[in-house]
């Protein structure tokens, strides 16, 4: 499948991916972040059941302390 990840096209062999699987594949599990899929915010307790499909627009906002 092909998705948009932070405005960049990414290809995966999988037919679909759970959000948690995407985070594993992209080695992003250790970073605190906000995830939106097609404009919908995905709460962190739903990462293991939320499915990313071909054509989805996935935005990851990385959170850093300091303000």
């Amino acid at each position: 499948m092909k998705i948009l990840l932070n405005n960049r096209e990414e290809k995966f062999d999988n037919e679909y991916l759970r959000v948690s699987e995407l985070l594993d594949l992209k080695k992003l599990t250790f970073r605190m972040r906000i995830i939106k899929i097609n404009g919908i915010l995905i709460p962190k307790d739903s990462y293991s059941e939320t499915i990313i499909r071909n054509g989805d627009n996935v935005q990851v906002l990385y959170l850093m302390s300091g303000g």
Partner: protein
Amino acid sequence: MKFPDIKKHLRNFRVGIAGAGGLGSNCAVALARTGVGTILICDNDIIESGNLNRQYYFSIQIGLPKVEAIRDNIAIIDKEVNIITNNIELTPYNIPEIFAGCDVIVEALDLKEMKEMFIETVQKEMPRIPLITGSGLAGWGDTGSLRCRKIDETLYVCGDESTEVSDELPPLAPRVGIVANLQADKVIEVLMKKRQ
């Protein structure tokens, strides 16, 4: 557009700011100078000497609640700006009520856990209000990496999304000021497109 017309337009709007530290205090001042009519600012900290390297406060204000001091400082700049202060700790339960009626909201909190809680709450409970967050401003140099990135119509992130503050990489006035002003500029851009 001439500045008096910009100011006249911006006077009609209310901007909410969560946090009155390095991002919030500098962002509030930039918005006040540009003409935003009402600024609601929420923080429950007091000013400490360590804040003065980047926050819009003065040494004689050490010990004062930040929201009181920012109200005083903005009043010295422009007494016409309506400042609403809230000296309270933000929770998922009080955020929708506190920020109700804001045309744009600025996330200017310190800890990433608080940022996450605030962004999740605002996007879930107030999904149509544009939210301008700040993430990644520590240290010095590489100011070209500081930018405002549009996630979608209701969410923007200002900063580099990669540097985190620590003892060895503290927040300093120049980069904090840049990110605070990137946030203020995005607020102005969003408001200038809105009808009164």
